[in-house]
């Protein structure tokens, strides 16, 4: 008897195998976060006993948690995978762009430039990402095989049909497919899968002490070299963990005592705030923030 985690796993494996079969040069977008770590685990299963047949690509904002980078490098070595790293800072300077003069100078929107540049340079025809439909309302609208035109843009109003499990991966040269094997997983499904599969994660997903200061809306930001701390900020050491791992300038921590995967699941069952709501301060810019970024070619 297969339970819902087996069914979600089977669906993700099916999608990964379709991607390997239908595209010439797919790549897996790897951030060091739990969703892309699960994707790598699923890809291991999908192609076992062979190794994962595609490389990883990290769009590096430079605003990294060291734990996530260490995890990435160990994983790549362990699985003998090729890793491409595209540095956002380099693409910014070659385009004459500078960091925003803000308290939290996020490079989130600049990531699109680097992603599209990497796709063009290495001729990736499919980019596999860990995005989930439960994360955000524009993502909830996206197909599993999500088409990007020659300019790298998503055209939500003209998405083609995607019926049954049939995935139409035919594209023209220069176009790109974004592939989302975790489309139907929720945050808590991912954690239950991590528990079941005994997947290890970077330590920042579990409770630890960190110097933080609190924003007006209650978000906890850790003190780091990329954010501008001023006199008004009250810095205290708090016991926190991260629900998502992203650009350090716009990823907030949450207060937590959860030390194990089971304790994280228990915490999430009672959580009143959504994953992105709790952690992504850049999502709050506008009501259609994610949709607009995706239309330009974002993940």
């Amino acid at each position, binding site marked *: 008897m297969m339970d819902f985690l087996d069914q979600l796993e*089977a669906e993700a494996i*099916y999608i990964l195998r379709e991607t*390997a079969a239908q595209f010439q040069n797919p790549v897996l977008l790897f951030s060091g976060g739990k969703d892309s770590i699960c994707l790598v685990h699923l890809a*291991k299963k999908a192609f076992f006993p062979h190794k994962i047949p595609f490389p990883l690509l990290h769009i590096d904002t430079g605003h990294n948690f060291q734990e996530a980078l260490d995890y990435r490098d160990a994983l790549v070595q362990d699985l003998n995978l090729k890793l491409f790293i595209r540095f956002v800072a380099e693409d910014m300077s070659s385009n004459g762009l500078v960091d925003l003069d803000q308290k939290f100078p996020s490079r989130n929107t600049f990531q699109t430039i680097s992603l599209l540049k990497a796709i063009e340079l290495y001729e990736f025809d499919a980019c596999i990402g860990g995005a989930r439909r439960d994360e955000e309302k524009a993502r909830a609208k996206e197909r599993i095989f999500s088409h990007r035109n020659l300019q790298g843009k998503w055209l939500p109003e003209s998405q083609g049909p995607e019926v049954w499990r049939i995935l139409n991966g035919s594209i023209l040269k220069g176009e790109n497919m974004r592939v989302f094997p975790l489309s139907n997983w929720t945050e808590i499904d991912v954690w239950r899968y991590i528990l079941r599969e005994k997947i290890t994660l970077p330590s920042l997903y579990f409770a630890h002490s960190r110097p933080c200061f609190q924003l007006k809306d209650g978000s906890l930001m850790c003190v780091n070299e990329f954010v501008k701390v001023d006199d008004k900020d009250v810095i205290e050491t708090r016991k926190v963990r991260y629900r998502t791992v992203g650009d350090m300038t716009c990823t907030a921590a949450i207060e937590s005592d959860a030390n194990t995967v089971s304790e994280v699941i228990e915490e999430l069952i009672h959580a009143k705030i959504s994953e992105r709501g709790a952690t992504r301060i850049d999502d709050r810019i506008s009501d259609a923030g994610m949709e607009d970024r995706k239309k330009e070619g974002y993940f």
Partner: protein
Amino acid sequence: MDMENKKLIRLFTAGNVDDGKSTLIGRLLFDSGAISTDILLGLSALKNSRTLHENFDLSYLTDGLRAEREQGITIDVAYKYFSTDSHKYIISDTPGHLEYTRNMFTGASLCDIAIILIDVNTGITEQTKRHSKIAALLQVSKVIVAVNKMDLIHYNEDVFDKISSEYLSFAEEIGLVDVRLIPLSALNGEQVTFVTGKMPWYHGGTLLEQISNFSPTEKFNESSSFRFQVQHVLPTKDSNIYLGELTAGSVAVGQKILVGAAEISVTIEEIINNFNDIDKAYAGMPIALKLKEHINVNRGSVFYDKVFPPKISNKITATLCWMSKNNGVTDQEYFLQLGSLKVIACIKKINGHQKSNEIQLNEIVAVEIQTKEIIAFDNYLFSKELGSFILIDLSNNATLAAGTIQ
């Protein structure tokens, strides 16, 4: 944790424009506790033209695109998730407008349960009938007809009964089997997840109870109905490894099976699942197979048991739902994709059609299709995986139509 054997159940909502589909889903999510506080605050901060009462506008939860919120309509399918003690549910909120039928089909095609909304004030419309026909075409296991906005007619029993009997006779006509009608108010939540006694004359339970009562039917599990379609081939020195999913039946190491339209007899040497060698695999499992014989099998080939073979032919009788503004034309070449198989095909004949050689956007028609090579396929009633296909435009790669095989 009572996670054991918790199953995935897919349901979709359909119906006429403004029948309150998005509001109903919002209500289900809200009452099952699947909406977080920050999302609710977002709702009260952002009201749009669909806000009728001072309550939160629950439709905002699923209308995720700017254009949808501006126009106050659902354009594309949105996926939402909630869980009960027994199941995890995936809800597709599908658009009501005729011009977005392709998106409705996208959201509905994999679903076990259809929830079709009818506005009690307007009754059954052409769209109700169209969506019901698509549910029948897709062989959705259970159809729940939610007769909505009962609050606007003071929860009147007679109006509900009239719609109910009219719908049931239509359902019989189109071959829908398991049909339930529920009077409710999505806006107030009445009869959706709770009952406050406004309709003492109705004893069919709430919508959520109706959904929870449903259990998916087990797939055909006898070894004779074994089906496996090759998704991807891993070449190795001695023999290839074939990756794919067991879509029906079971298969064991040592079993003699047949491969493809050529009916080549082979023996299963090794089955790999979850990093391990296993003796036997069952429907639904993703597996890797090795054969004793060193033959070359291509992506899209079907493995099966000789006792219960698929149909093997180059002629397919099917029902097509056309989804493109470019009309379907007989004798024009298309790609036909059936699971992981892709072949060139033509529509040879359109049955029972007044304008005999063209199919227009949103039409559902019976057709005869001819493929360039002989292929293995199933009746849709037996296999959703090997009994369904899409047609693809050869020049721009667009998906033009979805078909079910008879």
